[in-house]
Every structure is written in structure tokens, then in C-alpha cells.
């Protein structure tokens, strides 16, 4: 979930990151001689305009929308096609230069920080939408195509790509971080919706994780057999899902084939207030159990509602609130809304309002849309950072209650918004960037929160990825054996550790 995040300057003191950034200077002198010799190779591949050493360009490509400080690469290259990416990768491989793929820079975990310098592959010039297959419900896109651009392109076809992380992110980037969004409860995350990837490996070889062009025409006859179109194959290891979520550490994604869905015929949005977190979550569970194909079900806690009331001059009751959205045909919507309303009422829900037309729907959901800004407005001059944990639905009330106690005890500002249908929630930590004590407090809180989630069989990152900041937590979550397998896979695909070093897996030496 990303609600117009504004970057924060060095919010959390990540000692690893700081140390590594500082060590670039000493590494750089040794590397600068290497760099000069490769620059001419880069230029002959990408053209003169395709290579940049400009400080502003490097700074821009060394940070994303997280709180991690900017670690600029030594050079930024702009390949125009997969053959150029492959050639550049080979050069980097021969000279042992780190490779950092860059999409839109809208990540939230420092995934593009060049912690050991190197070459940033900015893929924005590869911006074609290829192969729209309307009857097969799939499309292939290059890394420069963003989520909104794709949906605008597809608008005449009656199809859309529903995974919506908030930001207008690169779709290949979303595949790399296994992004999710508010629609996941009905449409799934990237993991379920990426059908095939074209990946350039660290040695420059190009692979298609599900075979070249495979998942397109061959299976079209299946669309007559089932209403929900899905691609089937039993062929070999599931390479596609190995690369989804690999955050640029196993290869550079240069094409992704995505599953599309029909644009909903009609949309209804609703809001309902509850006397407690438990009541709100119970309603969510029961709505899902009743088989209502709810599209979005978002939770805002009382602190967040209060902030939204103040920010947008609204008058929601200041208690835990659910925001719901239903997609379907006119008739099925009536049934869905009725079922949902009955369930919420039986759980003590009140003030159930719903709307069909776009203007009223936007007004009903205004609180949810403005949540980020409302949180920021609680303390003007401060920056905000979003935590991201996910637990089984049954544990959600407990973790939210404990987290709120933690916030109050430590005097931290952290209104909560969550994709309650997935057990995923975010605390929007509003912090003074000039107060190191407070920043430390937030950092410790985040670690406690992640560990609390792990203790409840949850995950330390629901949607944002591991990136720089959650590597230790990944080890705790997965256990040494699983992380060991991950490390061996990494060593096999990238023996020189050139692909986005320092992310996901901890460096060996430590």
C-alpha cells in the first residue's frame, strides 16, 4: 500500500547501509580505473545518450520512496532492448561490476540503493506494451510500462490489470518485488498474476521462465472450458515464481506476461463503523466465508479515522471502520451488498452506507484515499514511514490491539490502515526527521512489530519486500535452512554476487 508517499531523509539509522555507503569511497578509487575502461563499452552498446555519469542522474537512481538514504551508483545506463541489457550485463560480469535494475524508483524498502556502487540499469526506455491477447486475457509488457499506463492502453478492450499498490509503479518492478495492493483479496498479488517472465541473468544469458511465447496461443481453447481463465502447465520447476519477489538479486526482468481480468460491470462502495477491532475483523472473516467475492476491504483504526475527520472535515464516528468495495454485475452487487450489510449488523456494525455512482463512492471512500495525508497532517513538518506486516486473519485483532498498546506506551504516532482481507496492515509512523531519539524509537518499534507478527505465524513483510532493512527479519522468519537454500540458489545464478548486492540476503561476511 502506498498513498502518495513522500520520501524521508535518513529516518532510521541503518548502520549497515551507512557503513557500506561510506566504504564506496575507498572502493571507488580502485573501481574508477575499471569504470573508465567499461564506459566506452557501455557507450557502444547504448549509444552516447544511453550512459550517464551526471551526479543528479545518479542521485535520482540511488534512492526510492523508502527512508533509506540515497546510495548512488557509479554510472547509470539506459538500454533500449533486451539485447542491449544482455550485452551490458556481460560487460559488467567480465569486470565484476554490481548491477542494479531500476524501474520507477517507487519501492519502499531501499531496493535500488547501490550500496556497493556499480551500474544502475534504468529500464524506462523499454516501454512497449506487446502482445495483447484479449481472448486469452493476457498481455506482455516491458519494464518501462507502468500500471496506470497499461490500464489506459487496455481501456478499449474491456480488460484491466487490477493489482494496485498505490504508486504508479513499473509492472516488471512490481513483479520483482511481488507487489500487492488493495485488490488482492479478490484478484491476488503479483505472484498469482505473472504468467511468464523474460529475464537477463547475471552472465547476460536471456531466459523465459515459462518458455518463450508459450502461455499465449497454446491454451486459448481452455477459455471455452472454464469461466475463470487460468493457465495450466506441469512443465518443470516453477521458475516464474522464483524470480517474482527476487528484488533484482537473481536477474533483470525485461518482460512480464500478466493475467488480465474483465473490467467490472459495476462497482459499489460501502462504509461501516464497528465498536471494536474484533468486531471489524470478525465481519471480514464472515463476509469472506459467506463467499462474497469482495474486491476491497480496508480497515482504518480510530486514530486514523480521527485524523481523517480533522483533515477532510468529515464526521465519521471515531471507532474502527471498514471500507468495502464490491465488483460485479448489477444483480450480483445487490446480493453482495445485502449479505455484507447483514453480517456487519450482526457484529455490532453501525452507520452502514453504500453508493453506486462515482461521485458518491469517492465521497464515501474519501477518508481511505486521504489517509496518508491525514496522517501527515497530524504532525505538520514531520515525515511518514509505513510499516508492513501480515498475519493470519485469526490473529489480526490480537496483533492490532498489542500494536496499539505499544504505540501508546512509547508515545509514538502511528495511525493504522490495513488490507484486512489479507491480514495485512500498515502503521503510518509519523516522525520528526530532526529528532534522532524519536527515529530510534520508531526503528525499535518496527522491529518489535515484525517480531510480534513472526511470533503469530505471520510475515515481516506483506507487500513491500525485504530490500535493505528486513534481511535479518527474513532469517528469523524463514529459518537458517530455508535461507541456506535461498543463498545456494543465489550462488548458482549469480556466483560473483553482482545482482543487486546487499538486498534480501545478508552479506556472507557478517
Amino acid at each position, binding site marked *: 500500500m502506498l498513498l502518495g508517499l513522500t520520501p524521508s531523509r535518513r529516518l532510521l539509522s541503518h548502520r549497515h547501509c551507512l557503513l557500506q555507503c561510506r566504504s564506496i569511497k575507498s572502493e571507488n578509487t580502485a573501481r574508477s580505473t575499471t569504470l573508465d575502461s567499461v564506459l566506452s563499452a557501455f557507450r557502444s552498446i547504448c549509444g552516447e545518450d544511453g550512459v550517464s555519469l551526471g551526479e543528479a542522474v545518479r542521485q535520482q537512481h540511488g534512492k526510492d520512496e523508502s527512508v533509506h538514504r540515497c546510495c548512488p551508483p557509479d554510472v547509470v545506463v539506459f538500454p533500449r532492448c533486451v539485447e542491449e541489457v544482455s550485452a551490458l550485463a556481460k560487460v559488467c560480469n567480465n569486470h565484476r561490476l554490481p548491477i542494479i535494475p531500476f524501474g520507477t524508483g517507487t519501492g519502499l524498502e531501499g531496493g535500488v540503493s547501490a550500496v556497493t556502487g556499480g551500474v544502475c540499469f534504468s529500464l524506462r526506455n523499454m516501454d512497449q506494451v506487446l502482445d495483447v491477447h484479449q481472448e486469452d486475457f493476457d498481455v506482455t509488457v516491458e519494464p518501462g510500462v507502468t500500471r496506470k499506463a497499461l490500464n489506459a492502453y487496455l481501456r*478499449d478492450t*474491456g480488460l484491466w490489470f487490477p493489482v494496485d499498490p498505490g504508486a504508479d509503479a513499473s509492472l516488471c518492478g512490481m513483479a520483482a518485488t511481488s507487489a500487492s495492493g488493495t485488490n488482492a483479496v479478490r484478484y491476488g498479488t503479483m505472484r498469482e498474476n505473472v504468467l511468464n517472465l523474460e529475464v537477463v541473468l547475471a552472465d547476460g544469458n536471456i531466459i523465459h521462465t515459462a518458455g518463450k511465447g508459450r502461455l499465449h496461443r497454446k491454451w486459448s481453447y481452455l477459455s471455452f472450458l472454464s469461466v475463470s481463465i487460468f493457465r495450466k502447465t506441469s512443465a518443470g520447476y516453477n521458475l516464474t515464481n522464483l524470480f517474482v519477489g527476487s528484488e533484482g538479486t537473481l536477474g533483470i526482468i525485461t518482460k512480464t506476461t500478466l493475467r488480465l481480468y*474483465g473490467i*467490472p460491470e459495476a462497482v459499489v462502495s460501502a462504509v461501516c463503523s464497528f465498536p471494536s477491532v474484533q468486531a471489524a475483523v470478525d465481519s471480514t472473516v464472515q463476509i469472506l466465508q459467506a463467499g462474497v467475492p469482495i474486491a476491497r476491504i480496508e480497515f482504518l483504526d480510530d486514530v486514523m479515522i480521527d485524523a481523517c475527520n480533522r483533515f477532510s472535515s468529515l464526521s465519521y464516528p471515531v471507532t474502527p471502520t471498514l471500507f468495502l468495495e464490491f465488483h460485479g454485475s448489477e444483480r450480483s452487487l445487490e446480493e453482495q451488498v445485502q449479505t455484507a450489510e447483514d453480517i456487519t449488523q450482526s457484529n455490532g456494525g453501525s452507520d452502514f452506507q453504500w453508493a453506486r455512482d*462515482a461521485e458518491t463512492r469517492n465521497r464515501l471512500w474519501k477518508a481511505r484515499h486521504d489517509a496518508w495525508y491525514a496522517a501527515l497532517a497530524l504532525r505538520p513538518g514531520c515525515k511518514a514511514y509505513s510499516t508492513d506486516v501480515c498475519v493470519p486473519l485469526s490473529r489480526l485483532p490480537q496483533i492490532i490491539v498489542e500494536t496499539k498498546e505499544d504505540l501508546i506506551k512509547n508515545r509514538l504516532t502511528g495511525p493504522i490502515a490495513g488490507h484486512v482481507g489479507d491480514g495485512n496492515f500498515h502503521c503510518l509512523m509519523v516522525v520528526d526527521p530532526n529528532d534522532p531519539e524519536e527515529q530510534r524509537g520508531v526503528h525499535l518499534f518496527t522491529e518489535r512489530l515484525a517480531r510480534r507478527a513472526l511470533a503469530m505465524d505471520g510475515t515481516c513483510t506483506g507487500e513491500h519486500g525485504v530490500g535493505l532493512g528486513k534481511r535479518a527479519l527474513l532469517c528469523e522468519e524463514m529459518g537458517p535452512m530455508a535461507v541456506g537454500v535461498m543463498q545456494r540458489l543465489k550462488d548458482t545464478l549469480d556466483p560473483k554476487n553482482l545482482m543487486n548486492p546487499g538486498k534480501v540476503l545478508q552479506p556472507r561476511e557478517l
Partner: protein
Amino acid sequence: MSGRVLVGVKRVIDYAVKIRVKPDKSSVVTDGVKHSMNPFCEIAVEEAVKMKEKKLIKEVVAVSCGPQQAQETIRTALAMGADRGIHVEVTGKDYETLGPLQISKIMAALAKKEEAQLIILGKQAIDDDCNQTGQMTAALLDWPQGTFASEVSLEGDKIKVVREVDGGLETIKINIPAVITADLRLNTPRYATLPNIMKAKKKKIANMKPADLGVDITSRLEVLRVDEPPQRQAGVKVETVEDLVSKLKEAGLV
């Protein structure tokens, strides 16, 4: 009162495409480039369909002039809720020189033939930016016009139109029949959903040629040359205010 509305829809290069000029500078590259309905035409169709849903009018007819591919644009209008389509076939050289004057003659002829009580068009097309077709059509028919409409309401046998003008908003009341041209804020066009696209395949599109309507489409305009905007030049950094002033003087800007 026929309760019939004609909506003109134009097939143009999609707004998101990077336009390139042909090397011979005769026109822009259109081969293999994504085309879609002109965004202002989408707004026009949406307005007509909304009126039908409110039962203020009875039938929405989508009209497009051009080669075979214009039918795709008409199908999109049908998927948004238009009832039937009219494809006026114009191809080759004639299509290249097709402009507002020719279209407005065709629209006027169709309006008489179909006994339309309202014509809704987009205010302009994003490829030529002419902003002339609506006005010319009204003149040829001697009908009133409500252009740059950001709000339209039918009131009996008159229409109230709120127009977006440079100084703000102007509200006028005009008689029906009339020509309206849609501006950006008139509405938000709906997406075509799959079931509606399916239904649209069964709706009728009538074919005809300009000659069938007694319209002469010869153009009196000739495009001499098409150029790209000049490339942006790198800037120059100056160290002092004196430097800045002297550079501005050199460039003849002060």
C-alpha cells in the same frame, strides 16, 4: 421530436503515443501506431448515453468518417451504450485531406436524414486541434451551438449549457435542435466492459459514402510541411547577475 442524438466520434492516434514525423515531413507516422477514440469524443458519447439512461432522449447514433478501421471506433461507442452506428466511408487521398469542413457537411446531411434533435461532438480532435467541426455544423444547419460545454441540462424544448470560457463560466439557454461540443469537465467517460463489448458486436453499423449524402468532400487546403517542435537546447550556467544580464542582452531579450 425524434429523441435522437447524433454523436460524432473520430479515430485518432492514442494520446499516450510518442508522435514521430515522417522523414519526408509530409505527415506523422500512423502505421503500426496505436489508435483510439478521441478523448473529447469519448466525453461526448458518455453525455449522450447518460441522457438516454435518464430517459431524456430515445436513441444515440454514433457516426464516424474514415476507412475500414473507423468501425472499431464506432464499436467502442456502441460498447459505451450507443444504439447504432453510421460509418461514412472515406479512404486514401480523400481521407488524408478530410477536415472539419467536410465532416460538418456530412454531419449536417446526416442530421437532416436522421431527423436528429441534438448533435454532440468533442470540442476538438487531439490530432489536428481544429476546434471547428461543431461550429461549422451548427452554421450549416442554422442551429444554435453550445460549445466548450462543462454542463448540459435539457429543460423542455431548450437546453441550458454552461460553457468554459477564458474568463470563467458562461451559462446560455439555446433552442433544440442544437449542436453541443464537449469539454473536459463535462463528465468522466465509462470504460467499455466485456459484456458490453459483446453486446456491441450485435448492434448495427450502417455503411455509406459521402456521395450517398450528396456531400462533396474535396478539400481546399494543402498541407505543405509537418515539422517536429525544435529540440530543447542545453542551458548555460552563469556565475553572476552581471553575466546573466549581459547574456540576456546578447540574446536580444532585454
